[in-house]
């Protein structure tokens, strides 16, 4: 399958990671994004407190961590949707602190949202077209002369069609985005972000709610992105997926980066297991195993209840 064709870049990425330390904040050979001391507090709660983090260019990096660890908030800081209390970060060497969200996107760093933001009353196709950059027709005066943007529009449409096909949304092409199902919205959101043609794409739980079979084919697509030279940073709770495509995994907990490393190493890291994966993450379980586990849990619960009583 796809896996074979992706070897070159993957190999490169893996090689880059090969002899790095497995510790939080480790320096990467060719970082596209460098983050220093980013802090965001909500009242008494420190949602994000990342001391140092680098993202390797051309790699697929997974960001995992328990719920409420601050992953989404971290994304918000980096992409200019929320202002950080402290810290600085540079994308391709360019300082981005205080830069408004749309500029961040234009520099080539595009994110998707965990809670999808489909543009309901635009059709799926229009949603896609919107993603394209440097559109001539988006200038007020040129918009008045259709001839000036028609050609470009056709090219954009073509690119959009391809992506839609990939994301199995081609049948919904002319429907309002508002009428898509939850999973379809996720897909649209991701496809739309790719229309921007970013250097670094930041996906916030792209596969939550997406059908497994489709997830699988999308993974291939994400790997292709790497082949095209794109860097991917994604948040995900689906360990199968993380294991399958990521070259490097960053773990956050309570706002801070607690571990970094290749997927296999990370998943056996005891701290990560405790904080995040839980004892039984290694799917699949047989029915018997499950029964066992259930009884265990039940016993635990009962014990606790007794304790209380």
């Amino acid at each position: 399958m796809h896996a074979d064709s992706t070897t070159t870049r993957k190999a490169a990425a893996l090689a880059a990671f090969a002899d790095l330390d497995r510790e939080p904040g480790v320096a990467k050979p060719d970082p596209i994004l460098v983050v220093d001391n980013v802090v965001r507090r909500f009242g008494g709660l420190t949602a994000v407190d990342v001391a140092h983090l680098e993202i390797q260019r051309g790699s697929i990096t997974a960001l995992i961590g328990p719920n409420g660890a601050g992953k989404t908030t971290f994304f918000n800081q980096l992409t200019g949707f929320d202002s950080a209390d402290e810290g600085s970060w540079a994308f391709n060497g360019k300082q981005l602190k205080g830069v408004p969200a749309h500029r961040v996107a234009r520099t080539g760093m595009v994110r998707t949202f965990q809670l999808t933001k489909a543009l309901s009353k635009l059709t799926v196709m229009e949603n896609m077209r919107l993603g394209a950059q440097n559109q001539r027709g988006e200038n007020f005066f040129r918009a008045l002369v259709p001839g000036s943007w028609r050609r470009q529009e056709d090219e954009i449409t073509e690119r959009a069609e391809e992506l839609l096909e990939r994301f199995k949304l081609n049948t919904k092409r002319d429907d309002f985005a508002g009428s898509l199902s939850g999973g379809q919205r996720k897909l649209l959101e991701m496809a739309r972000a790719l229309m921007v043609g970013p250097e670094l794409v930041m996906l916030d739980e792209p596969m939550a709610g997406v059908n497994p079979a489709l997830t699988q084919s999308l993974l291939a697509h994400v790997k292709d992105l790497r082949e095209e030279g794109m860097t991917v940073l994604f948040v995900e709770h689906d360990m199968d997926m993380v294991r399958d495509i990521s070259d490097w995994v960053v773990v956050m907990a309570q706002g801070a980066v607690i571990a970094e490393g290749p997927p296999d190493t990370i998943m056996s890291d005891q701290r990560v297991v405790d904080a995040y994966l839980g004892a039984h993450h290694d799917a699949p379980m047989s029915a018997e195993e499950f029964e066992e586990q259930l009884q265990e849990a039940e016993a635990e619960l009962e014990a606790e209840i007794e304790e209380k009583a």
Partner: protein
Amino acid sequence: MNGVKISVVAEDGKPVDDATSGADGKWEVPVPKAGKYKVTLDTSTLPAGVALKFQNRSTLDVQVYDGSVRNVLFALVPAGAKGGAAPADDGGTSFWDRVAQLTFEGFNLGLIIALAAMGLSLVFGTTGLTNFAHGELLTFGAMCAYFFNVVVGVHLVWAALISVVIGGIFGYGQDRFFWGRLRRRGSSLVAMMIISIGLALFLRYVFLFFFGGEGAPYADYNAQPGIQVGPISAAPKNFVAMGIELLVLVIVGLALLKTRIGKAARAVADNPALAASSGINVDRVIRIIWTVGGAIASLAGIMLGLSQNVSYQMGFQILLLVFAGVTLGGLGTAFGALVGSIVVGLFIQLSTVVVPTELKTVGALLVLILVMLFRPQGILGRRERIG
């Protein structure tokens, strides 16, 4: 003032006549024709201990018109208190007294606005409807009370009670037979907003039809003489009204925060489908809110009528301030309406210290815009989370 000499000279410098004031201080000079004349009071003839109030005006240019008598007045004061504008002697107030009075008036007006705003905010909060017909709910309440008070002849207190109940029923009915139906048909909020503009128009002119264009006061407590409390003079009815308003506002605010139905109302506001899934009877909650909203609006109308007058445009005229209050406080917050409205009330009144009173609304509205500049979510509002 007796024996003061006055001389009148025509425009061209020809003296016309002189006169000496009589025992009552009056004098009279017949002039030949219309035109300009100079009238001079000879200050040296003034009795001792008396001086001109406006010293530099012992000579006046007077225009006399055809066929009419022209009065000229030389204001006199006991010598010693000479010159300048009138000092704050009997009953005049100092600047700070006025500020105190204005602050009081600010709360007075602010609380009425707050009461109206609470009703609006309740309905907006639960249904998302920007109800431009809310002003007419106020007018409705005020007119009901007017009917019972003036036409039927019940004392205002009872008339108000009855009207609050009727206002509640009116609110209930509106939802039951109108807004509720529209909601079920799936009308969009914008469409409903425009429908509310139509409804406002309709109701306002129904009121005009039956009530007429003139304002009218209630039969009780009208032009109640003020009492002096410190620097503030206020009618007793103001204090009672403010007390009632504050009480109702706090009760409703707390009810919204603490009671089960209040929380349910906020839940419906957030997400009606989910509220239904939680076992909340959404229609019932909305109906209760409309009932309470209608009753509060009615009360607000009565209070407004009490402090102003009942007229068919009363609600409409105050609506903008009500909206400003709700917005300033933060849409959909329980006490935002209260805080925002009081700020609006205070600024309307206090801004008159610096701007002409005809522009007092401008003062309050500017504050609204400025606050929005720094707190786009309103004073008590919270920012939405992104992502």
